[in-house]
């Protein structure tokens, strides 16, 4: 039996097809989120990769910001529950999930059975989210995927002290005007995101093993900065950005 999980985020759409609630058969990721054709394209892509027709999918669950908009879904679950479920499926030893998405950050605490016991979300603020990195990459005329490489070249981190993304933008421009090295600035930007989300994690209570999920987890610069902030190793899966969709596919399997 095949089940499909679709995670419609603020900036990307992700889909995972699961076989018999265990095996990940296919995945897709489209850089277009809620309110775009991204979800439809993600579903088309994942079906093509899995070589399946829509009628072969037993159940579809939606998650993410756009979850209520997915037509023909059999159900929907919050992205918090789906991330917890997806991470527990692949990394059962994880007790703390730090999920940084396009427009928010969440920290989830899991019990030994994988159930979410507590969570916190930042909201109403772009600082400490993927959006912050997007804005900063834009100012530095870098591609978002180049931030990690640039951060690795840093010799002396330039700290970004402003809490607010808008003020941080001015701060970065000022630093550029002062002639600081771009890698040092990028490392400071990664550290800025990590320190804000680490504070959120500490409020929940950090229990090892800690993993990062969401799109920002792909950025090794932020992962490294997060390890420094928390003083522990961060577990990372290449499936980090697909954990929500995986969780949704697991919920779809439960209900089918």
């Amino acid at each position: 039996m095949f089940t499909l999980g679709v995670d419609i985020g603020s900036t990307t759409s992700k889909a995972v097809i699961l076989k018999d609630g265990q095996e990940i058969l296919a995945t897709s990721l489209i850089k277009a989120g809620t309110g775009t054709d991204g979800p439809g394209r993600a579903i088309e892509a994942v079906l093509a990769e899995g070589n399946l027709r829509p009628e072969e999918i037993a159940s579809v669950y939606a998650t993410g910001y756009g979850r209520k908009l997915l037509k023909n879904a059999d159900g929907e679950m919050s992205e918090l529950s789906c991330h917890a479920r997806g991470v527990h499926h692949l990394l059962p030893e994880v007790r703390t999930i730090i999920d940084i998405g396009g427009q928010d950050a969440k920290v989830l605490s899991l019990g030994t059975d994988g159930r979410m016991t507590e969570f916190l979300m930042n909201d109403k603020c772009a600082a400490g989210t993927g959006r912050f990195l997007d804005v900063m990459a834009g100012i530095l005329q870098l591609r978002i995927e180049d931030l990690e490489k640039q951060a690795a070249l840093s010799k002396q981190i330039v700290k970004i002290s402003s809490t607010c993304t808008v003020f941080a933008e001015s701060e970065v421009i000022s630093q550029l005007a002062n002639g600081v090295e771009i890698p040092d600035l990028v490392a400071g930007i990664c550290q800025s995101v990590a320190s804000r989300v680490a504070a959120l994690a500490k409020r929940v209570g950090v229990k090892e093993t800690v993993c990062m999920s969401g799109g920002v987890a792909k950025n090794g610069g932020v992962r490294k900065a997060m390890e420094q902030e928390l003083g522990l190793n961060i577990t990372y899966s290449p499936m980090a950005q697909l954990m929500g969709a995986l969780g949704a596919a697991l919920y779809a399997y439960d209900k089918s």
Partner: protein
Amino acid sequence: MATLNELLENFHDIACSPKKQLNAYLEQGKKVVACVPVYTPEELIHSMGLVPMGAWGADIELKESKRYFPAFICSIMQSILELGIRGEYKGISAIVIPSLCDSLKCLGQNWKYAVKDIPFIPMTYPQNRKPESGKEFTKASYERVIRDLEAATGEKFSEASLAKSNEIYNEHNAAMRKLAEVLEQHPSITAVQRRDIFKSAHFMRKEEHTALVSQLIEALSQVEEKESKIKVITTGILADSDGLLKIFDEHGLQIAADDVAHESRQYRTDVNLELESLEGLADKFSRMDHCSVLYDPEKKRAGYIVDLAKKYKAKGVVVLLTKFCDPEEFDYVMVKKACAEAGIPIIQIEVDRQMVNYEQAGTMMEAFIDML
């Protein structure tokens, strides 16, 4: 006898139309005095033949008030000033602003400059309200409010009238406590309807509200309840927004009981009618408890919320934290710890008077329900 639906519609109309209520009282030749959160000696105002009306702000865009306040301050208070500047309180004889938190003190000071046509009457409470000296301080502050009310309205105070008003307020308190118990037995009453009933109390003379609430309790006794929902306790300063409360209704949550300042916190403590009336009112304040703005070195509120959840077999506690409310933020740590020790799931949702999008609050609530 009105039907249940008629009564609920009536409560809704009153709760959503404070301006209409104000104008109706003014047309009747009554003088109205605005009462700012969290606790104002309404009994005093009522006893002088004036109509006390709650002024808890509104969900509006803040523009003019920003001239007087920084951005990071309680939006309930900012919206009260905004409404005052916009002239929404036109016709009101005075506004009583208590000193129960630092932000309220700022509101009082700003009011004097921003809304010159409505006199500001400060109500200064003591931090240590329980000792005799604290009660004397409260009583002296009440006497100052009486003098200011007399000056602003021309009405006169008498101990005998206050004794009568104290009785009326005690009766209303009892009706509201009974109502809360009855509503717990009726999950079909939505969170929005529950809000309407409690909110309307702030815009009516209490004897009128008691009569309406009594009718509602009677009408509810005729209802055979079939619905079943997940019971939760709400706690915070305010649970007013439709957008927020609809999340409860959409996700099958019932507010089994509340520790909300705008709601049940108002009705927990009665005046001891054995005492001289003004002394009795000061004594009442000394006995009020379990509230973030009432100084309590033992912070018994945390245990109170746990007991409330246990009493009503609530599955969880929803903390509706008013953004930038320091007293509530300080208490949250203790409430969270007490709930964790009692094994009661707790969620904090930050709310303010300017929220228009409740998408994230909805997501958090969904995740919370998954946890329950």
